[in-house]
């Protein structure tokens, strides 16, 4: 333990053990965790899904879903007192005033039926004897400190009336209003867009430094760690495998698991570009438009139309990967749906080779679908849970006239191609992990021998190490089968590694398009610059570690 000498610890976790209910995948969620958070320090607890990091956070708050999940050994000391020796009443007095918490989903973490001001004020009402006037003044003050524009009207707003970033600011205001000694932040920026994420991270950092608060920051993202952490602790399957100063762990990880995790973080520097200038265009999109009209109502107030895709044009060449990057609401997913005609575009042209997709009749479209296939975002939702894997993969060829026997035999070959055992063929999707399911999704897309694959955030639901494997597979298959890939993503790191060219979208328009290396090193549009300068951990380059291929 290399705690700083200058400050005293606010949180000392020693030998913490949390038991899971019978029938879980493992008996202990957390096994023998020892961790200290000092005043004025941000400690990042990093782990993949299932590592137990969120349960550890709940354990500090004594908010575990008891009796199913409970602490079975170890101590949690806050400011010198053992939290598990306190009465519930005493513990309640600490929560919100001395220790507070920020959660992941700002939408669901606020009560939809109460005004923002009321919800912040509740903390004051619970823990102080301030008068109503004083409380109101304090709420305004803290809202100002978290830089909510126009605090006076924000006080009276309901959570659904403010944006996601602002909601997270409200959560932070709520956590900080009594200047607690310890804040537990459970993935507080994961649900936010990259530009908002950076602002929120900076805000946490700033206020924490100002108040001298200790922060236990839980995350899965090493970029965020590089952005904010003083110290880092890495959790694998409930076991703390490594901890130390941030610069140490990020640049010289000692434990193989940490090394593997860091090696899986995509580098922001794009690799050397491929030469595809001479390749023919397989997909030409010109002037694509899509507007979402509000549902017609007879007397309802007319809501504004949303222009999701506004005059978008680009080309995709044979063997090329074109990335479409942008934040949520930029229209990037709508583009992918319009091109595959899962949504009907309002205007423009999509030329697949020499055929105009948007003008195709139903039967023509069916034939065209052979050439352009999709890989979807959510590996759970994109596979029909009631179909066996072999039938899922063989479905496309069968629909297009292949005999079921041949299609199934081919499906088994495809499983090998995506590095799954042919034994997987007779299983159902729920028996597979997220990464394996995404491989099945890829096999399904390949079953029709398409020329183009449209991938809509195919790795955003996956853990970073799995993500790296799936990306590697996609790149290999693209090169081996000379596929053209249209890759929709919000993750600029992923785009940097996989894409030959990127198109940056903002509010339905492509603001910049060009070779990845050029766009990343010399962005011409202000929005692209803003995006790139918001990537968490952009100043940190993941070290290249010898003898490790993720």
């Amino acid at each position, binding site marked *: 333990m290399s705690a700083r000498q200058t400050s005293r610890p606010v949180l000392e976790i020693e030998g913490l053990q949390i038991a*899971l*209910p019978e*029938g*879980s*995948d*493992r008996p202990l*969620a957390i096994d023998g965790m020892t961790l200290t958070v000092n005043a004025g320090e941000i400690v990042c607890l990093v782990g993949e*899904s*299932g590592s*137990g990091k*969120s*349960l550890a956070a709940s354990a500090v708050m004594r908010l575990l*879903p008891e009796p*199913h999940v409970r602490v079975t050994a170890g101590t949690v000391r806050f400011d010198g007192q053992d939290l598990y020796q306190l009465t519930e009443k005493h513990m309640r007095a600490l929560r919100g005033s001395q220790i507070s918490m920020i959660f992941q989903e700002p939408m669901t973490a606020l009560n939809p039926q109460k005004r923002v001001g009321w919800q912040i004020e509740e903390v004051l009402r619970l823990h102080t004897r301030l008068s109503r006037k004083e409380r109101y003044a304090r709420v305004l003050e803290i809202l100002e400190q978290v830089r909510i524009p126009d605090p006076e009207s924000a006080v009276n707003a309901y959570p659904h009336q403010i944006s996601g970033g602002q909601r997270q600011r409200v959560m932070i205001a709520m956590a900080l209003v009594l200047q607690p000694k310890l804040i537990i932040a459970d993935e507080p920026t994961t649900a936010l867009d990259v530009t908002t994420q950076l602002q929120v991270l900076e805000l946490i950092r700033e206020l924490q430094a100002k108040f001298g608060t200790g922060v236990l920051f839980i995350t899965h993202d090493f970029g965020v760690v590089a952005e904010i952490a003083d110290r880092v602790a890495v959790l694998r*399957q409930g076991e703390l495998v490594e901890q130390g100063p941030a610069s140490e762990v990020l640049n010289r990880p000692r434990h193989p698991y940490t090394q593997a995790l860091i090696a899986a973080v995509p580098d922001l520097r794009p690799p050397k570009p491929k030469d595809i200038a001479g390749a023919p265009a397989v997909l030409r999109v010109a002037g694509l438009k899509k507007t979402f009209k509000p549902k017609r109502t007879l007397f309802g107030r007319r809501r504004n139309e949303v222009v999701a895709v506004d005059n978008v044009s680009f080309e995709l060449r044979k063997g090329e990967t074109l990335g479409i990057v942008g934040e949520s609401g930029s229209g990037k997913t709508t583009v992918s*749906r319009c091109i*595959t005609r*899962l949504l009907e575009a309002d205007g423009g042209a999509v030329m697949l080779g020499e055929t105009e997709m948007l003008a195709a009749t139903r039967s023509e*479209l*069916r*034939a065209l*679908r*052979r050439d352009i*296939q*999709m890989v*979807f*975002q*959510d590996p759970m*939702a*994109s*596979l*029909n*849970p*009631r179909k066996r894997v072999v039938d899922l993969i063989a*479905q*496309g060829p069968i*629909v*297009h006239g292949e005999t079921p026997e041949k299609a199934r035999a081919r499906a088994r070959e495809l499983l090998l191609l995506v590095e*799954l*055992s042919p*034994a*997987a063929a*007779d*299983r*159902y999707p729920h*028996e*597979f*992990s*997220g*990464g*394996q399911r995404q491989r099945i*999704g890829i096999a*399904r897309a390949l079953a*029709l021998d398409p020329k183009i694959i449209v991938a809509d955030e195919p790795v955003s639901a996956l853990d970073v190490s799995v993500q790296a494997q799936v990306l590697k597979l996609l790149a290999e298959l693209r090169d081996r089968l000379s596929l053209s890939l249209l890759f929709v993503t919000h993750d600029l790191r992923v785009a940097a590694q996989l894409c030959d060219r990127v198109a940056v979208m903002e509010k339905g328009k492509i603001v910049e398009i060009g070779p990845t290396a050029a766009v990343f090193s010399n962005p011409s549009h202000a929005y692209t610059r803003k995006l790139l300068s918001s990537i968490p951990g952009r100043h940190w380059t993941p070290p290249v570690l010898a003898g490790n291929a993720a």
Partner: protein
Amino acid sequence: MSTVDIGISAAPVSGWAVLWRRYKRNRAAILGLILLALVLVMAATAGLIEPVDPLRRAGEPLIPPFTSWATPLGTDQLGRDILAGIFHGARTSLLIGIISTVFAISIGILVGSISGYFGGWVDDALMRITEAFQTIPNFVLLLALVAIMGSSLQNMIIAIGIVSWTAPARLVRAEFLSLRGREFVEAARNLGVSDKAIIFREILPNALPPVIVFASVIMAIAILLESALAFLGLGDPNYASWGNMIGMGRSVLRTDWYCAAIPGVAIIITVLAFSLIGEGLNEAVNPRQKKS
């Protein structure tokens, strides 16, 4: 906190076995099965108790229960054997319950799936019709239908089906609405699968479990509706019916209340059986309430 890799070496378990394992953990649900078995046995052996006609005179009128071997549960004011009425009534109740439920659910699935899948004006039109049916108090509509069509067993089944299809239709529609936008449906469309195949092969199998669970509720309500009709004397006079027995018992309520009480208990047991089974199935299908 649960997505830990499941190795593909794990032995495949059939869906039914998992369902049964979850179901049998629930003691109340098992009680439901036992009660249902009891009612089924009564229906099956009704012919042994009274092979000819449960509505014939079997002895002196108003023999109290547990006093005569020939009529263990006593007789009503017309001297009809209550035990025979109960056993044959089980047949009528189950018959009406099952067939009208199948009828109601079939209409519900048809309307709900078309409405939910296609949306737009089709959905608007079908939903207004559904609302109209829901707005008319179901028992009042049932009375009107029986008044017009007559109250033969067959017509009662149709009438009960007509007043019961709206709830499953809404349920199926809601399921379709949520499943329609799922990525696996988009994936099927992207493969070029036809609308018909998407409705019946992709969406419907996933939409059915909650509907099947809900069937037990409709069954329970159908049985209650039939008994209420028969209680008012509007049932089919040619079949033994628990509701009718209660209705007859009403006139001797002050002196011989058992005439109404015994068939009442039979109804409670039957409806309870379906409710318990429904509840058990529901928990087995979506086990989210009892969080681990």
